[in-house]
């Protein structure tokens, strides 16, 4: 059996072990936060009763009535509820990721573009970088509101500063020989950035982008904790008020799933642009 296959089996084994240990813990600690609300919910509870309670957050539509309209909890409403709230969160994340990524990249490139752009950009952004992200949540809420724009700005800010720092660093690491060669062959500054700097920083930017994705998921949750009326963060806050630990745990599981899928997807996507790089830079 080759090593890659063995690694996969070991990972699978670890995964199964975690699932089993969780189940054992739920049996060993049957304490309840409130009657019918186990502190450690076993899988049989999570995927039945807990999942069903998600119907509470269904806002109606598609001919499936909401609990607020007097309907019974149904698996269909629960599923739709999770889907719609996930969609809200993911749209916020993607918009913030794109806005923050593009802005961070452009500002990062501006630092090396010319002496003047460096003077303009470097100090203010370095200052922004040092502000702790979570401490900024209430500020953003008050400045920009709790609507879509405020949330996206917050996510974009969290991601932007990481991408900015990554870009500045990656540009600094581009070997001078490629820049000299491009200039000697007649590249203008714009062509130099498009054909040399951008591709040369890509392997390094890839890790910055993956890093910022983790922060992005955190930031979008942070934005939703405060005042949002939708999204997975909203469900967690709502569940917390009633000490529904099992619901919070279910959402956390969903988060693990989404984070893994987004990492995998982004890393697949960027790998396509790194066909030229040695395999060690593509993993």
């Amino acid at each position, binding site marked *: 059996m080759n090593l890659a296959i063995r690694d996969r089996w070991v990972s699978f084994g670890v995964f199964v072990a975690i699932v089993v240990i969780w189940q054992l813990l739920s049996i060993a600690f049957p304490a309840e936060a409130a009657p019918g609300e186990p502190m450690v919910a076993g899988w049989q509870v999570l995927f039945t009763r807990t999942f069903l309670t998600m119907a509470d957050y269904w806002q109606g539509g598609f001919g499936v009535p909401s609990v607020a309209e007097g309907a019974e909890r149904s698996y269909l409403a629960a599923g739709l509820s999770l889907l719609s709230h996930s969609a809200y969160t993911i749209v916020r994340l993607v918009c913030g990721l794109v806005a923050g990524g593009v802005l961070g990249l452009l500002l990062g490139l501006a630092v090396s573009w010319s002496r003047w752009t460096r003077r303009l950009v470097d100090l203010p952004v370095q200052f922004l970088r040092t502000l702790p992200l979570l401490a900024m949540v209430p500020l953003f809420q008050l400045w920009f509101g709790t609507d879509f724009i405020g949330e996206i700005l917050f996510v974009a800010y969290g991601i932007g500063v990481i991408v900015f720092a990554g870009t500045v660093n990656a540009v600094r690491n581009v070997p001078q*020989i490629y820049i*000299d060669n*491009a*200039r*000697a*062959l007649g*590249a203008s500054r714009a062509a130099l950035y498009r054909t040399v700097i951008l*591709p040369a920083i890509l392997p390094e930017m890839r890790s910055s982008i993956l890093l910022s994705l983790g922060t992005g998921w955190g930031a979008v949750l942070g934005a939703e904790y405060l005042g949002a009326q939708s999204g997975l963060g909203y469900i967690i806050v709502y569940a917390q008020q009633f000490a529904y630990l099992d619901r919070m745990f279910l959402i956390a599981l969903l988060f693990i799933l989404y984070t893994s899928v987004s990492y995998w997807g982004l890393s697949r996507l960027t790998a396509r642009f790194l066909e*030229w790089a040695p395999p060690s830079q593509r993993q």
Partner: protein
Amino acid sequence: MTDTQPRMIELAHVSRRFRRADGQQVSAVNDVSFIIPEGEFVCLVGPSGCGKSTLLQMLAGLLEPSDGDIAVGGRQISGPGPDRGMVFQKDSVFPWMRVIDNVEYGLKCRGIAPAERREIARTYLRHVGLSHVERAWPRELSGGMLKRVAIATVFANGGRVLMLDEPFGALDYVTRHQLHDVLLNLWNADGEGRRRTVLFVTHDVDEALALADRITVFRAGDQVDDIPVTAARPRTTDSLLLPDMVAIKHKLLRHLGLDHAAPGGEAAA
């Protein structure tokens, strides 16, 4: 070379000073003047740190001289230009472009149409013997093949002046000699009257003797000698054994401080 040929490169009192990290001024190139006629193959020889690479960088337009004027083709240079091409010591081939795209790069920067630049690139890839790997990624090539790509790239770009900065220094003996042939064949490809002007920096005396029409010697930022190499082309291993060539070799070795093992070296000079 005769005086009838137009001046291609003119350096007048060119100096370049650097400030070292400890604050001291270092003079890398010191009041250098020379003229190179069109079509001449000149080797710049000298010990490392003698300023020959700095001189080339200034000619390429990647460095500004502290003093003096540099003209190429009768025009004062400012910055890099398509009239000059440079092959570097380190690998300069862009790893994110396929071989053919690398060769086309300069032409693309100058806005040559895709079909035309592809044809030019293919021609030069054939000249350097790399037609079979035009779609390969640079990481798949050996060091010698990467040098061939770099040479094809500057020739394809069409500059009338080519500068090579110790291009084969990191290659093995066999590969180095194969590349000498590749370079000379390309230099001769358009006929004797259409040769490009070449400035070739090396610290390898035999390399200079095999390639150059003229060898210019640098030491500590100063030009200390300028020796015509008269042996006929194409040169063979035996050409290097001609009395004239042996005398030049001794002279060069003495400039490099290496002529201990040559009896009668003084006489030969």
